[in-house]
């Protein structure tokens, strides 16, 4: 399933981790690509998901972050930051983009980012 499984990750520095508000998110845009939401949890962990709710495509980067979850701003689905999947009883997943923090800098796997499939809109 993971889009990067077969290839070598291409790590690209994005921003210092502190530039993402704690319990908040930033949006990464790149021409021709599906935007990615970068989240920072209370414990400092950073997550990256395609910025589309599996329900109706809502921008998850605009949601309220709690624990390792985000509530979609459109219809309040709860999406797990670890796996991109909706909490029961809702179902559906949004792709996870590999991300890591190296010396305080957030790095994203560009290869996975570029491979995100644009999904049909709402």
């Amino acid at each position, binding site marked *: 399933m993971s889009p990067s499984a077969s290839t070598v990750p291409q790590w690209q520095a994005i921003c210092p981790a502190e530039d993402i508000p704690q*319990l908040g998110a930033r949006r990464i*845009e790149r021409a021709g690509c599906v935007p990615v939401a970068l989240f920072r949890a*209370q414990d400092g962990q950073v997550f990256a998901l395609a910025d589309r709710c599996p329900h109706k495509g*809502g921008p998850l980067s605009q949601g309220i972050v709690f624990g390792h979850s985000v509530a979609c*701003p459109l219809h309040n689905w709860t999406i797990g930051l670890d796996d991109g999947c909706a909490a029961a009883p809702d179902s559906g997943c949004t792709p996870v983009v590999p991300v890591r923090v190296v010396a305080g800098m957030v790095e994203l796997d560009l290869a996975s980012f570029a491979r995100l499939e644009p999904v049909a809109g709402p």
Partner: protein
Amino acid sequence: MDGASIANPPVPARQRLVLVGNGMAGVRTLEELLRLAPDLYDITVFGAEPHPNYNRILLSPVLAGEQTIEQIVLNPLSWYAEHGIDLRLGSKVVAIDRARRRVRADDGTEVGYDRLLLATGSHPVMLPVTGADLPGVVAYRDISDTEAMIAAAAHYTHAVVIGGGLLGLEAANGLMARGMQVTVVHLMDHLMERQLDPAAGRLLQASLEKRGLRFCLGARTQALVAGAGGRVAAVELADGTRLPADLVVMAVGIRANADLAQAAGLHCQRGVVVNDTLQSVTDPRIYAVGECASHRGVTYGLVAPLFEQGKVCATQLACFGIGRYSGSQVSTKLKVTGIDLFSAGDFQGDGDTEEIVLSDPVAGVYKKLVIRNDRLVGACLYGDTVDGAWYFSLLREGRRIADIRDQLMFGQSHIGDTGHEGRSRAQAMADSDEVCGCNGVSKGRICSAIKEQGLFTLEDVRRHTKASASCGSCTGLVEQILMFSAGGDYSAAPTKKALCGCTDLSHDDVRRAIRTPAADGSRLLSVAAVYETLGWRNPNGCASCRPAINYYLISTWPREAIDDPQSRFINERAHANIQKDGTFSVVPRMWGGETSAAELRRIADVVDKYRIPTVKVTGGQRIDLLGVRKSDLPQVWRDLGMPSGHAYAKALRTVKTCVGSEWCRFGTQDSTRMGKELERALWRMYAPHKVKLAVSGCPRNCAESGIKDVGVIGVDSGWEIYVAGNGGIKTEVAQFLVKVATHGEVLEHAGAFLQLYREEGWYLERTVHYVARVGIDSVRARVVGDAAGRAALWARLQFAVDQEPDPWSEPARAGVDLRQFEPLSA
């Protein structure tokens, strides 16, 4: 995170949990536990019956031939397998060895436990009369009883049911539906004396007699007499009467089944005595839930309290240790198709109570409401139970009813007017009819979800079907559907409603904790401090409680509490309204709905410059720019040069005005000026929900003041102020608050009312619901009757909004995180 571990540490042995009793209370506890801590235990379940967990409440429809046993199974065998549960069916636990922590079953097998959960339910009471052990004499408790009754109905004619309570009547009705001639023998003078008063009991009896049931009331059973073949043949009453009986059903009551616990030396009093954590007071490793548990002297036999207990017990078993069970209030409904009957609370009343009674024997309607100290304490409804859920909620909340007393009998229910064609009776609806107009959920879908997923509460239905989960106007309908699909006692049992799943505290509890300084004088001023001090289950709450707590903080301690942007919904964080495509809409403030050529030019220029696709005039006399990219928002605000209209916030939105006496030939007052004064005094005011005002210059009321949170209407001698109107889901006409003479008085009264709402309203509660909850009389007393209190409220509001910045022109001072408007690039 992806570093390889060198050696796998040994997996610690899991704790062993044994459940004795494979019924609704025990298995529900397991379900809750598995949700909280799926891997904590190796679970073994003993069930004396050879069936997986089924819905015992629905045995009556099975008996009546309306449902099958397969349809009432709640957890099929595959569910146990999926969760790795060792299920021992047809295996009855006969002993607990507390010293060695083992249970032994009647087949000789033994299983050890670390924690033991008793959910052994209850025994039917069998009258100790001669012949009670004859063939053909059964209780009515489980599937095998039901099967015996169905089999008897196929071969025999005469049945006698002993006991005219809920269970007995359901049994009698079912046997009659299967073609038997049924007589009900009841010791008391009227039916269902524990649920109904005599008048309702007689109505019920008349209606059941019309269907063909026979009754012997005030009758004591003396003996059961055998026939030639050794099977029961007759019931002999104390007065000598003999009733022919090929089948006798004993339904005289149940008794908690605490035999096992008693033999194991646990303290029992009717049931296993448990504390608020559902632990046996004798042995903390042993828990008990359901009908076999005795909590604060009460044993419950209805499903809603059992589920409440299950939830609390699960948090304990999951080692969260936070849940407490403090008892339940219960309501009942008879599950006999075509008979509407509902009772709750103290419906009998006593010397201290007053009664409101409506009785129409011809139409078969009887309603009795019992009131004590201005509060509804009991309700007994027959024939028309639509408002049962509403009465039950009034009863649970203990709200004062003086102000609605004259309408109380006619009901109100939660039923709104829109989204379901104004229907109010779910039973009359076809399966294809839409119940929830927001989410497009039909009655059929709700019914099948209830049956297939085993749903019991309104919350369950909301989670699984989304019905009633958005605007809530169909809540009354959904509750009715639950009543007859899931069985009677569907109601949420807790006496107070928790703020969200992260806590057991209510909105009021949390507000009180925020308002009250600690013993050392310290106060709660941040969301994190509230969570820490009040023991929240999730360290940063959830998307429901964070905005609520943030609002409670900033409204209680203005200028001191820390306003946390990450605890606000995106609209309040970005100061614009998010749209379905992720763009935003922008509504600048136009004081009292007035604008100018210069403002309109600037708006037009902004529309051109930022290629804003849609410009719309709103219902609140403002202009809405739709489809603005988030990254353009700061520049759009700057170029507009107008203050925020807060159209995105739980705050003062618009003050709608008619043109008033300055131009209008009918106008008696200058409504536009009054509106502008109100808007300038109140804007930047955050509230539990959005707040809309209107000012009309004469009673023709062109500004529609009658459906606003605060509506002001000019008359020749001054201004009338109306509050708590609503033009939304359920149109609610505003209620008259006071008539005043001057602009200053309008400001002070309107402001004081809104400050009261800000201080007492629950987050996301509109003024209409707030006033319905506390009563208009209480609002009048505070805002109109108490001049000093009013002035103080008004002063507090002014203090709160005085230094609040306009987020559009001073985003930095307003604490807007400007990074959000700049996308990162890769």
